[in-house]
């Protein structure tokens, strides 16, 4: 298994402009109340990582309960909305409409350069590394035009499919096959070489169904590229319930490294790469501390975030990456 460390520089605000992001968070809190707390039926579940039922109630966000698995340390919402209710939420909630129509568009350029293009470079290079003749690529749940543009551009795959029940694009214009069904209705078997799951594991209610389904879709030896946040990351460990990036339903499952490894193993995948190439951990702590004067940080952390030394911050972030301690993870797994 390999681990990648990336020395890149960008600012979290480029990706989440403060005032718009605050609006998004407020709308999310309201939308959750309308869609889940008052409306839909919530279901109890075991740890999505290791399936252990032994957990500690950790904290509540927007009326939903985060629990910490006693066995693998994964943080997860339970009881939780079903995937059908989540599809409705992602399609219709004012929060997601704001995301699609404003936030996503306003940050399109920065996201494209700093996130989306590097992700496709990663997919293409790793595919070349592991597969001889890849043909069919599929993405699950992508909802941004910038992703669709990159998928369209990719030259190493001859067939491209988007599986997303709430995507509104014209397939004829893109040359991409679009499947708008729910996961359990998609009928594909041993046909896809490469699948990408960008932050999908984070907001999927039935994680076992997701993994079971795309395992069926992949050819033997096929690859899946997963990106996700992880709970063992620095900013989550420091900020915990105060973290501004930790709220439902976008973060229904916040796996630990162990939780992900258990999930992969359970579904017949071999992990080829597990990296935490995040670069915003320290900045996230710094920003949250600035927004919350009452937040008491341990003295060492306070000293670290208040240091004006760019070099120190970079060196610390690199240390986090090298030791799988950043909160953004990327993984390559292979169907056995």
């Amino acid at each position: 298994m390999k681990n990648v460390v990336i020395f890149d520089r960008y600012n979290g605000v480029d990706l989440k402009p403060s005032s718009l992001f605050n609006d998004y968070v407020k709308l999310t809190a309201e939308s959750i109340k309308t869609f889940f707390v008052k409306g839909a039926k919530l279901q109890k579940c075991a740890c999505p990582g290791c399936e252990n039922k032994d957990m500690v109630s950790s904290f509540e966000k927007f009326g939903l309960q985060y629990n910490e698995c006693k066995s693998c340390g994964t943080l997860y919402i339970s009881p939780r909305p079903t995937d059908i209710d989540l599809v409705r939420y992602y399609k219709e909630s004012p929060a997601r409409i704001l995301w699609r129509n404003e936030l996503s568009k306003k940050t399109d350029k920065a996201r494209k350069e700093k996130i989306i293009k590097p992700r496709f470079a990663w997919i293409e290079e790793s595919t070349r590394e592991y597969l001889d003749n890849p043909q069919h690529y599929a993405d699950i749940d992508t909802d941004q035009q910038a992703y669709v543009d990159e998928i369209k551009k990719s030259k190493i795959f001859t067939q491209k499919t988007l599986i997303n029940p709430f995507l509104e694009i014209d397939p004829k214009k893109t040359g991409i096959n679009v499947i708008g069904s729910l996961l359990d209705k998609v009928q594909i078997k041993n046909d896809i070489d490469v699948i990408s799951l960008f932050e999908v594991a984070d907001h999927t209610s039935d994680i076992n169904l997701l993994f079971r389904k795309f395992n069926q879709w992949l050819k033997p030896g096929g690859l899946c590229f997963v990106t996700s946040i992880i709970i063992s990351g620095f900013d989550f460990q420091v900020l915990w319930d105060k973290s501004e990036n930790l709220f439902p339903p976008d973060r229904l499952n916040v796996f630990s490294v162990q939780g992900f490894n258990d999930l992969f193993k359970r579904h017949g995948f071999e992990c080829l790469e597990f990296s935490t190439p995040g670069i915003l951990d320290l900045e996230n702590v710094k920003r949250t501390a600035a927004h919350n004067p009452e937040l008491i940080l341990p003295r060492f952390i306070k000293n670290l975030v208040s240091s004006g030394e760019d070099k120190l911050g970079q060196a610390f972030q690199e240390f986090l990456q090298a030791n799988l301690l950043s909160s953004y993870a990327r993984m390559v797994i292979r169907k056995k």
Partner: protein
Amino acid sequence: MNIIKAAIIGYGYMGEIRRKVVEESPRLELAGIFEANTDKCKKITGCKLYNKFEDVLKDDVGIIFVCTPNSFSPALCIAGMNAGKHVFCEKPPGRNVEDVENIIKSEQQNQGMKLMFGFNHRFHPGVIKARAIINSGRLGKIIAVRGVYGKSGGKNFSQSWRNDRNISGGGILLDQGIHMLDLFLYFCDDFESVKCFTSNSFWKFFTEDNAHLIMKNKNGQTASMYSSATLWKHTFKLEMILEEGYATIEGLLSKTSSYGQERLIVGKRQFEDEASAVGNPEEEITYFDRDLSWDLEVKEFLNCVDNDKPVQVSSSHDALKVMKIIEKAYIDSQNYEEVY
């Protein structure tokens, strides 16, 4: 699944590694081992021990792994192919160009028999990933390569056959540097111009313990390599300079871990019009923790055997190219024949 019987010829360091690969492969069955040295024979348990090499040739064996000192390898490869066996031979493929040319003649006379050489570094994870990145074209074309590969000798080094020129044909350059040169050729075009300095000033064997090579090819790619048996800190470093950036493989996964953790460092060059053009670009480092090179190269060999495909990676053609460079280097090295 079609199981192929394999025999191992020579049970030194490499023979033991090959035995493990054969025994762990679901496609191979170990038919037995032939080892000429009676002391080494005592280490062989749990499988058939051939008394004579000829017995291997007569046996129902599909593949032979030749893991012997350099002077014996060519004759064994030739005899194996003549007897209708596929042959996997460790590097170096012989002592000199003539040895390899003789093997190639036999290969041509035995069409259908597959022959591959153990340039396993091509299958190291850092090399595989570097090749994927370079082939993607995002860093442009290779301008230059620079390699350092060296070790410190080790236990019983002075008694090793590797330092007996009659058996080995050369020193550290032929024994270890050949891997680095093979990688140069894997990434670049063939190098026609070769300059070299060698010395044996520390170990005083009749072979070189240090070699410095400078090379250039018709496409203007330049290369330099330092191969050494006096690098007290074991070192593997391959730097590739490309038009749009660089890729460096540093450290090498090995049995003893003495070369450090294998990692690939990739950086994109900063352009002249960028404000932050300070010659210290952002980098991406990939750390690897699993060496599958021994298995992958045998898998590639089996793929050629199964599908009757020509061997294209670590082929006799590759072996000949690298041996020609080494021969040129030895010739260029001042008074090589006289000194050693």
